[in-house]
């Protein structure tokens, strides 16, 4: 009985894995088609990309550095989806987390370890607090989170640009905010990977534990699965939604923190926010490829971090604008939006030995 359950579970996981792989393949083929249309050599481009991202150890460490914030913004979206919310506000919450880290990490003088902890917690809370207006608007006024979170993203964009320009600008270099002080930096492991990666993984594991091993997480997922049933079961929907937004905001805040306190060589935010922009949206693709599961998201982030890091080699060697990896991410999401995609493929290429079951 137990064995049967286990094998069913494994089969389910394998099916999900196959679906994600199929979507990734569709995305890569779509990217190749886009390159071919404009006469780029896509074989050369992809070769440069994957060799750059995974070909050697220091490249892989850099890939992990790119993956670090994506794991967190992916988690933001995943926690939302698990509780029935389409929370696409990770972008703005991440900006707030980053500026929070700049305020404490760059402007204050504190003893070493305390400084790092305080800056991290402050940044995470800044992200979480920025998620609350969307939660409150949804609960009390029924404003859909798709609109409210995007509006909050833009308000955060202008607020953070203002703060960088007028309040935390680096006196030495006007185009960026004050870098985090030595006492507020995570240790460098190699390339631009720092120990914040470990914290991010730990946060994911805690999120997993919270979602699947606690009553709170159970309630959250019940609300996501069937809101009516949750209401009949006496679950406080408003409270669950608040929790979901708050947890997601903490994760997005940590994503922002990781770009300031855990990302050499700059350890800060640029006034254009070039080193932050789109990390929140990329998390959506990461979460969907990782099937909204904390562990899946870690692997999806490493894959997508590889695309981001390798994209620079692709640009250098094949002349393809590295932004195409974002287009590939979009195609992957579109492919994942079609639940029947895998069945469709099975119908076109039936497996001969087992027929069309499964």
């Amino acid at each position, binding site marked *: 009985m137990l064995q049967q359950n286990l094998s069913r579970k494994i089969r389910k996981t394998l099916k999900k894995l196959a679906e994600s792989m199929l979507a990734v393949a569709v995305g890569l083929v779509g990217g190749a088609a886009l390159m071919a249309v404009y006469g*780029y050599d896509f074989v050369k481009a992809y070769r440069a990309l994957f060799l750059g991202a995974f070909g050697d150890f220091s490249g892989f460490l850099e890939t992990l550095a790119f993956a670090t914030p994506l794991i967190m913004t992916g988690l933001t979206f995943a926690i939302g989806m698990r509780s029935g919310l389409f929370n696409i506000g990770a972008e703005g919450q991440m900006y707030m987390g980053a500026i929070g880290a700049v305020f404490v990490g760059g402007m204050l003088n504190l003893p070493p370890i305390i400084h790092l902890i305080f800056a991290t917690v402050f940044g995470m809370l800044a992200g979480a607090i920025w998620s609350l207006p969307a939660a409150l608007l949804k609960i009390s006024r029924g404003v859909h989170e798709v609109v409210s979170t995007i*509006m*909050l993203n833009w308000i955060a964009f*202008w607020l953070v640009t203002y703060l960088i320009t007028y309040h935390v600008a680096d006196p030495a270099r006007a185009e960026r905010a004050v870098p985090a002080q030595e006492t507020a930096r995570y240790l460098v492991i190699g390339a631009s990977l720092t120990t914040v990666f470990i914290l991010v993984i730990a946060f994911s594991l805690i999120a997993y534990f919270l979602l699947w091993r606690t009553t709170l997480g159970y309630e959250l997922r019940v609300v996501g699965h069937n809101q009516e049933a949750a209401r009949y079961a006496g679950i406080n929907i408003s409270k669950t939604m608040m929790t979901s937004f708050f947890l997601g905001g903490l994760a997005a805040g940590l994503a922002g923190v990781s770009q300031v306190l855990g990302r050499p060589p700059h350890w800060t935010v640029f006034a254009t926010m070039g080193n932050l922009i789109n990390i929140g949206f990329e998390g959506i693709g990461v979460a969907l490829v990782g099937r909204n599961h904390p562990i899946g998201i870690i692997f999806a982030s490493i894959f997508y971090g590889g695309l981001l890091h390798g994209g620079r080699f692709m640009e250098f060697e094949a002349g393809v604008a590295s932004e195409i990896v974002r287009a590939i991410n979009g195609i992957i999401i579109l492919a994942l939006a079609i639940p029947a995609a895998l069945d469709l493929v099975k119908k076109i290429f039936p497996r001969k030995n087992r027929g069309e079951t499964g």
Partner: protein
Amino acid sequence: MKPYRLRVLWLLIGFVAVAATIYAMSFFGLKPTRLIEFALLALTPLAFAAVGECINEKSGQINIGIEGIFLISAVAGVFWAEVFESGLLGLLMGGVFGALIGGILGLLNVYGRAEQVIAGMGLNILAIGLFQYLLMAIWAFPGIHIFPRTLVVPRISIPLIGEELAVSPISLAAIAAAFAAYLLLNKTLLGIRLRAAGEKPESVDVAGHSVYRVRIFASMVGGFLAGVGGAFMPLGWFGGLVKEITAGRGFIALAAVVFSGLNPLTALAATFIFGFAEGLAFAVVVTPAVKEAVPFHFIMMLPYIVTVAVLALFPSTRRFPKALGKPYVRE
């Protein structure tokens, strides 16, 4: 009072507030006509997209990828405008590309039974990357493209209470589109079929028409209008392409749709309020007396704050189509 009448009353109050703001701004040396000109420009892409999305949602589909259509059709519009050396043809091609994207989304919705919100977000993210990739691939310059000023669709002069108002004919077309959509939805056979596809798709099937075709058609119309709106931003307004060109307008249009309860005329009115907030921001940013007092960053927040505030103050009271967002499966 019926909730809907109440909503119209609130809209009227909104317009009075707009008029009062225009009057107040005249003390800062801002001419009322300038403000209305800005507002009408800002209204145009919002109105096109919102009207299109009203039609699309009436047929039972949601498209949150308007922002993505804006971005892609802006590039396509400029590209073809340069090829044809005509801004108007560029706008049309922007619409054609929008319709193509809408058609693809419709196919995914109908045959792929897609989760429409996720598909729309995929389109948005695809467009962010594609926009910058295309700028490099076509014009070999990163992030920005400026084209000859002659390609911008010229504005025409309309007399208004003793003043001259420079209005883009495309803005007038956007307003006309809202009325046309209202007539299409409420006074034609096709409109009945469209609404039925959103309310009770089986009934369309029983009547011998294809739900699939109706929905794909609606998605294409919505895409076409959003495409024209997207191409309008470079070709009728800014005179160039930058990667932040849409600045969340696709979602502001979506907010107008939610507010309107899918009535194209109410949606038009809502886009006027949102457009006015944006126009006010643009106008105030260049006004000396205000520029010194408030950093422009805060003024740029205005459209987003107004959008959220309007949705928070007036939660949607009208019923949305029963089959909204649900794929139709023939039995």
